[in-house]
């Protein structure tokens, strides 16, 4: 277990260094980093100090090391557009994005898994065909369009739900939550459905494909030959084997959702990191872009690491031999 964990951890660190290098390049190849990190009204003394603190007179690998060191301390400089420390901006926006992404991921699992199982077990039924066609429409609908249509129907025409913002939020320490007020929950409905649409269809298709694959295996045939009930075969044997690869994709998908939230947040003017990022792209606000990239990278890597560990717990084969579980 320890060797496995250390190996994975090392890989994660390498990925983070790669992401950090891209972020570092953003700074260095898109103009004068000193100008980027300081507000325009900064004095020459300020500039020299920053230049020195950045070690810009040093060779570039030393600069990179300094960048990494600053990054580890959460220091990504000052937003060009808002004139405030980037880390502060991100911390403010983080809860909104995480609450949205978590809710969407939960929707994906709670709806996607049962639908996937159903369409795999009753593959020729009429309902399954409707689900499958529906899922194709689901992946063909651009995320922002789903949001627009939902706003048009439920906010503009029916007037049931708000179309933008987070509603009232409650501040708990650093964390601002929308879960505790009625308006916060109402404001969450449409964005969560919009963002959850893709994971629902993806998880459904994935569960279906994996389950069909598993149902063809010899051990399922043998389980039937042993006279086990359908329930035991499908939910005792097939489902567990199906969910092993599904865990990975869903885990990775959660990371994707946080990045994907950029679109949903723009449509619903949801005050999360994604909205901050898109505004940064429009204004070429490099410090915010770099910091967002590093943060997303970090979230991805952490999730990957957790998924690997979970895999390890679920699949006994990994615990003994080091064989990787490929070939699906």
């Amino acid at each position, binding site marked *: 277990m320890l060797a496995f964990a250390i190996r994975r951890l090392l890989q994660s660190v390498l990925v983070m260094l790669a992401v950090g290098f891209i972020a570092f390049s953003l700074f260095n190849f898109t103009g004068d980093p000193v100008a980027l990190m300081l507000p325009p009204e900064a004095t020459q003394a300020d500039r020299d100090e920053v230049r020195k603190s950045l070690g810009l007179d040093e060779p570039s690998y030393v600069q990179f090391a300094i960048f990494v060191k600053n990054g580890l301390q959460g220091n990504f400089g000052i937003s060009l557009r808002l004139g405030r420390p980037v880390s502060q901006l991100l911390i403010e926006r983080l809860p909104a994005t995480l609450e949205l992404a978590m809710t969407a991921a939960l929707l994906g699992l709670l709806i996607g898994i049962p639908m996937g199982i159903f369409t795999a077990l009753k593959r020729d039924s009429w309902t399954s065909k409707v689900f499958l066609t529906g899922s194709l429409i689901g992946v063909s609908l651009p995320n922002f369009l789903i949001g627009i249509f939902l706003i048009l129907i439920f906010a503009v025409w029916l007037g049931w739900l708000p179309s933008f913002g987070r509603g009232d939020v409650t501040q708990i320490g650093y964390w601002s939550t929308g879960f505790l007020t009625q308006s916060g929950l109402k404001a969450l409905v449409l964005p969560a459905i919009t963002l959850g649409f893709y994971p629902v269809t993806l998880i459904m298709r994935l569960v279906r494909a994996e389950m069909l694959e598993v149902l063809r*295996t*010899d*051990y399922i*045939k*043998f*389980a*039937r*030959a*042993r*006279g*086990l*009930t*359908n329930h*035991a075969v499908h939910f*005792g*044997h097939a489902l*567990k*084997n199906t969910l*092993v690869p599904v865990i990975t994709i869903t885990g990775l998908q959660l990371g994707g959702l946080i990045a994907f939230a950029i679109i949903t947040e723009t449509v619903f003017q949801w005050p999360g990191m994604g909205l901050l990022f898109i505004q940064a792209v429009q204004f070429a606000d490099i410090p915010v872009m770099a910091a967002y990239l590093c943060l997303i990278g970090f979230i991805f890597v952490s999730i990957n690491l957790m998924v690997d560990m979970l895999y390890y717990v*679920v*699949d*006994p*084969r990994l615990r*003994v*031999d080091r064989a990787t579980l490929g070939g699906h």
Partner: protein
Amino acid sequence: MTTPSVPLLQVKNLRIEFPTRRGILVAVDDISFEIAAGEVLGVVGESGAGKSLTGAAVIGLLEPPGRIAGGEIIFNGKRIDNLGFEDIRKIRGREIGAIFQDPLTSLNPLYTIGRQLTETIETHLALTHTQARTRAIELLEEVGIPAAAKRIDHYPHQFSGGMRQRVVISLALAANPKLIIADEPTTALDVSIQAQIITLLKKLGREHGTAVMLITHDMGVIAETADRVAVMYAGRIAEIGPVAEVIHHPQHPYTIGLMGAIPSVGDNHERLSQIDGSMPRLTAIPAGCAFNPRCTRVNDVANHRCTIERPSLLPAGKTRAACWLHDRLGQQSTAINQHTVTV
């Protein structure tokens, strides 16, 4: 071998079809055979001859679109081919066990063998979990797993291939069935381990009084294990009879060719014979006898009968063979036994 008045398993005129876009494929065409209690019936044939499908049909595990299109399967005096899902499920594992080809893939990799054994036992027998576990350990000991009480909590990948097949056998025996369908139980194993598994299967069958339908393409395995043997060709039974008779005095030209193709120690033939051509595809089974395009004796039967009329199983020597050479009413057959082979 005494044959009781009612056989344990009777298969009558079984026909298995696969509807495809280009028409219906008949994979098993009108076959009939019986297995007596405690008897080992070997079913031998090339791949695609329909052996495995016949086995799957008996336990109701034909995979769609395959379907039973005709005939009856009678087990213990009761018809089982038309049972509802729940009824046939209760027979599977309890009355009829099964062992498949590949022990590496027959066990669910995510569960311990103990969990797979106890769930099977608890499904069929009214035992508490502790009793089921005790029985599971006994079963593992019986199939020769050392330190069974410890090994029971291990996962399949922690066992070798031969050991896994022993576990599979213990699973098939878990509820003490009357019949076991063993579909190529040794094909995936090393040669040295094959013999052990066959010996084990034979011993357990004898001790428990379990009949075995042993499906294989390996005539050697049949010779060692079976009481009787059915030779299948292109979805039909070519010859069926006591194993020693079929091996030493085969009556169907296909069986004769098959026996001639098996090497043996002390073989006094100069070279192995072989059958020219290959088994027809299911889409192109010739009219009359399915073997006629490859048969060296096809001209020994008058009036092109072999290419026109399909032979049924006819008494031939001490076996029964689906060959017009043995139709004593239609034509004299004298020369057939000159091809007798010693194995």
